[in-house]
């Protein structure tokens, strides 16, 4: 049993599901834990209307509980594989946050799925796998 967990970027999509399963198999083989990270994209410098300011705290509570719900099936699936699993939901920039958490948790690697967007789209809009490949402090595996 190693102390270094595998970090999985998870958002409830099919791609994320595949990444979680892939990570579960690896973790079972290595004998390490899996840590699921659900990032809600957020910038403290975005612009909100007055109405949105009023409702922000309420919306945030709702978004957090929805994210926790989305995490549940993956947590259960990993628990069935007898893999120790933890999770967290965070607000922020997904690339920066996942790198920061990988350092904090002393993760051995990061695994995430890809949604299969076009190369052009990824170049124009940026993509999380590309960002992490560029910036991650640990090896990154992208599950197709």
């Amino acid at each position, binding site marked *: 049993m190693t102390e270094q967990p595998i970090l999985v970027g998870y958002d409830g999509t099919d791609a994320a599901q595949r990444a979680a399963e892939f990570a579960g198999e690896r973790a079972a083989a290595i004998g390490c834990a899996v840590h699921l990270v659900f990032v809600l994209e957020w910038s403290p410098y975005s612009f909100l209307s007055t109405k949105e*300011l009023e409702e922000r705290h309420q*919306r945030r509570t709702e978004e*957090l509980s929805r994210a926790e719900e989305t995490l549940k099936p993956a947590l259960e699936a990993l628990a069935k594989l007898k893999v120790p699993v933890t999770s967290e939901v965070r607000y922020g920039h997904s690339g920066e946050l996942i790198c920061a958490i990988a350092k904090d948790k002393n993760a051995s690697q990061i695994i995430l799925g890809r949604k299969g967007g076009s190369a052009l789209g990824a170049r124009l809009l940026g993509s999380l796998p590309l960002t992490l490949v560029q910036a991650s402090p640990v090896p990154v595996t992208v599950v197709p």
Partner: protein
Amino acid sequence: MFWKKTAAASTVAFASAVLPHVATAQEVTLDEKINQVVAPVSNVIAGFMFYSVPVAGTDFPLIVGWLVVAATIFTLYFGFVQFRKFSHAIALVKGDYSHPEDAGEVSHFQALATALSGTVGLGNIAGVAVAVSIGGPGATFWMILAGLLGMASKFTECTLGVKYRNEYADGRVSGGPMYYLSKGLAAKGKPGIGKVLAVVFSVCCIGGAVGGGNMFQSNQAFQQIVNVTGGPQSVLAGSGWLFGLVMAIIVGVVIIGGIKSIAKVTEKIVPLMAVIYVTAGMIIIISNITMVGDAFAQIFVGAFTGAGVAGGMIGALIQGFKRAAFSNEAGIGSAAIAHAAVRTKEPVTEGYVALLEPFIDTVVICTMTALVITISGELNSGLTGVELTSAAFASAFTWFPLVLALAVVLFAFSTMLSWSYYGLKAWTYLVGEGTGKEIVFKLFFCLCVILGASMNLGPVIDFSDSMIFAMAIPNIIGLYFLMPVVRAEISQYWDKIDRGEIRKVK
């Protein structure tokens, strides 16, 4: 009844707009009719609000003195907080003290940006032009001074806005003067006075919302549209009601229909427009850098001599003070409503952030507009309002009136959205919450968009000014009572910083 009249008169107005040669001088358009009906009412209100006393041979409106005296008292009482804590305010906005666990909540930056989008707008473009066209370049000096002093008023009211806000069980957060007046004064053992002030404030806030926050905006947006489509010869001239109707429908779609996409688009474009406006202004100033010294000389000399201005120095001072107050709304109480939703355990932090608002709005943007107008030499062209600003920018960039027209319409629109919210909060404070009650206010708000676009500049400015300034009477009385509460907040906050309980996270 009103709609029947509208339908009949609109045919006339439409015909005269499409076929200008048919229109005769005797013909009374719908716009003129609306003007005739509303002007006497707004004149009475403006006459009451701007009760003036003769000072040095000119009339000095007491309400302007009320705001400046309050700003001066807060500046002294809090020991020039706007200068001493300016860098702390910047650190707070940057998020240096924001706890990472609060990500996803309303940040200091967001509260400031939203409050600014409610104040940065026509006051900075049209209002400044009115000030310098009546008060001369010297009005700029007094405007800057009033802006700097106003930072202390904003600090006081926004700290209280957060301290006495409401946090509802469902997670919504809202506050504002009506709550700090009622709750704050109740805590001081004066629930009666507090309640009265809160009610008076709410009534005035509704007036301010439909006046300066609505009618002034639609009026100036329409003027600018007429301007870029050919001035008096424009096919749109005289059909302000039509423009107002279109604006009213768009505003209605957002605030009644809850269509977020329009608001979202505006939110993205408005900051861009602000950047374009400031950049264009800076380019004009820098490319005429040799004239800046002369412009500042005109501003300083004009401020103390009032050369060539009706009322001399006092005339310049009144215009400068009036426009600053109208533009940055310090002491008016409106911003406290927007700032109240921020995520912070320390109310005073939002006060520090809020004091940046008059600085950005008045000291930076208004001054820039005034410099551009002074440099351009358009001041003696006989123009006023947004037309003057437009002509001043056009002297450097001939295409700029088109950009400015778009900016003015968008600024007007975003300011209307902010004020519809302020007005609604005041309305629900008075009559209680409920979908039906809220719809009544929103419909009335949309109707005022049409009225504003139909009226002449004079009555609209008078009404807007008077209602916005009226909010300052109950608000500032309350602030005087609650000043010690803010001082206590300041000392406990800095104690925590000294003890290391609150420290930078970055």
